[in-house]
């Protein structure tokens, strides 16, 4: 498939799932009610469509796109099909930031929790970017990320351990399971700023990802400023992941699976895969959120639970089929 038609097809699919996500929900509406709701945003139906469902669907799309893009960048940079946004410890850093804010009794203000999550993610991301500029080998970076991830996880567990309030522990757990419920346009706008910056950095680093196909030494000898490009890729992925975690908590598997869904269509190209991965990630998260809303359960299913529940088997299937092409 040619890349423009792939991007067009994915964009159409995203528009479809977004439309479905706004149309479907707990309250079923007649076509006439939809029409009225769209025309009068202030009406009760308009309120449901414009203030509840639409921002929620868009937040899901934005989070999915950030995770899909970030996952593709990580896989390209680390030359590893198993890499994902969380591998560098950025998600765990975000989770820790949110946990600390909630345990400190700041959960009444979602903005504070979001900011704390973003700060945690960026702190972790900054540490990894410094490591990325210094160490050439992907393995070193992965090990560093694993250590950082484990450390942030341990600190989060410590917060649980020391927290005197079971209520805040439940809130932390709920936050860590990921959700885009009750997000408004302002939340999305706040998330979009770091995401746009991250996407810009990733676009700048795209040629380095392509060159990394043949390994670090070939890339360095090709005349590209690899140290700078590598740091840009890591910083970009960290900004995207951090902003996604701040907006929706921890949503697993999307960053891992999205690039694999489109890899064959771009013939493995780690630079051309970026935009299709972002679109595939957006589709996956919007779908997952929609499933969480329409499946009739006592308690609404959390986004992170659904992405992992569907993502893991789907990923295993894709991995099974693609395994042949990974053998070097």
């Amino acid at each position, binding site marked *: 498939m040619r890349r423009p038609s792939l991007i067009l097809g994915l964009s159409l699919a995203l528009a479809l799932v977004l439309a479905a996500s706004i149309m479907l929900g707990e309250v079923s509406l007649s076509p006439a009610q939809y029409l009225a709701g769209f025309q009068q945003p202030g009406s009760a139906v308009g309120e449901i469509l414009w203030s509840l469902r639409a921002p929620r669907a868009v937040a899901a799309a934005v989070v999915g796109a950030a995770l899909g893009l970030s996952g593709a960048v990580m896989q*390209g940079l680390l*030359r*590893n099909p198993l890499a994902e946004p969380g591998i560098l410890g950025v998600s765990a850093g975000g989770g820790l930031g949110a946990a600390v804010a909630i345990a400190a009794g700041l959960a009444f203000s979602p903005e504070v929790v979001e900011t704390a999550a973003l700060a945690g993610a960026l702190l972790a991301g900054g540490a990894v970017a410094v490591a990325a500029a210094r160490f050439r080998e992907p393995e070193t970076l992965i090990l560093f990320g694993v250590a950082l991830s484990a450390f942030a996880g341990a600190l989060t567990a410590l917060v649980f351990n020391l927290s005197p309030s079971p209520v805040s522990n439940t809130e932390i757990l709920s936050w860590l399971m990921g959700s885009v419920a009750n997000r408004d346009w302002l939340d999305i706008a706040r998330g979009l700023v770091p995401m746009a910056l991250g996407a810009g950095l990733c676009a700048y680093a795209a*040629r380095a990802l*392509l*060159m*990394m*196909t*043949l*390994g670090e*030494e*070939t890339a*360095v*000898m*090709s*005349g*590209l*400023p*690899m140290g700078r490009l590598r740091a840009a890729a890591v910083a970009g992925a960290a900004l995207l992941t951090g902003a996604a975690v701040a907006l929706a908590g921890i949503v697993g598997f999307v960053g891992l699976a999205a690039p694999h869904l489109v*890899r064959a269509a771009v*013939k*493995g*190209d*780690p630079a051309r895969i970026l935009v299709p991965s972002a679109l595939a990630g957006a589709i996956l998260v919007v779908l997952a959120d929609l499933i969480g809303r329409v499946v009739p359960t006592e308690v609404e299913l959390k986004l992170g639970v659904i992405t992992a529940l569907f993502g893991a088997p789907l990923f295993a299937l894709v991995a099974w089929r693609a395994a042949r*092409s*990974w*053998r*070097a």
Partner: protein
Amino acid sequence: MSAALEIHGAVASVGGRRVLNGVSLSANAGEVVGVLGANGAGKTTLLRAALGLVPLDAGVARLAGDDVRRLSVAERAHRAGYLPQERRVAWSLPAWRIAALGAVDLPDVKARATALQALDRVGLSPLAERGVLEMSGGERARVLVARLLATRAPLLVADEPVAGLDPAAQLLICEVLRREAAVGAAVILTVHDLTTAVRYCDRLVVLEGGAVAAEGAPRDALTPAVLARAFGVSGEWLETPAGPLISLETIRS
């Protein structure tokens, strides 16, 4: 005119271990220089040091007359193309896209044309669209040589370009590199097979324990004494209609 590659008194360590111990060598336009030596003799480190990829503790490496440390990455890429020993390709890009990575300085259309031409020189035109991970090891190695050719650099540095390949692929790659030298490139390569080295290289540098054990025309460099010292084998030159051959035997004590 300065040598395409010149290294003087190179001393380098890898992981705290001294690997190069005062090595000097040069490669000029139009010649193929073979670097030989037992495993661990320092061949790869020498090539990497010459390109500035390994820092020197002492000595200097120059590309076309200029200290490699003073060259910008872009300028260095302009002066030397490098084919590392590592042949792992992360993603199954079509062969022409891999070859085109040698010509990143060119606009897309020209890079593609350069890549296709390079693939043609290694006999892979029919497989230009095939994913590299769906190819045999030999075909992939040829694609990587095509990428090296696509750099169009005046100095081509190839680390073990024929290791692990079948005889036909070995001959093809050696002939391709010889042809590059014939049209003016300086070629430096590491190689294990002595007969290949003797037939395709103008000059040989034999390393032993991080120092030059012998240097010169193949016949002057690979004397029985050098073969015994550098490789621990007893060797004899045989003349055949197809060219010289070195017959090797284990030294029995």
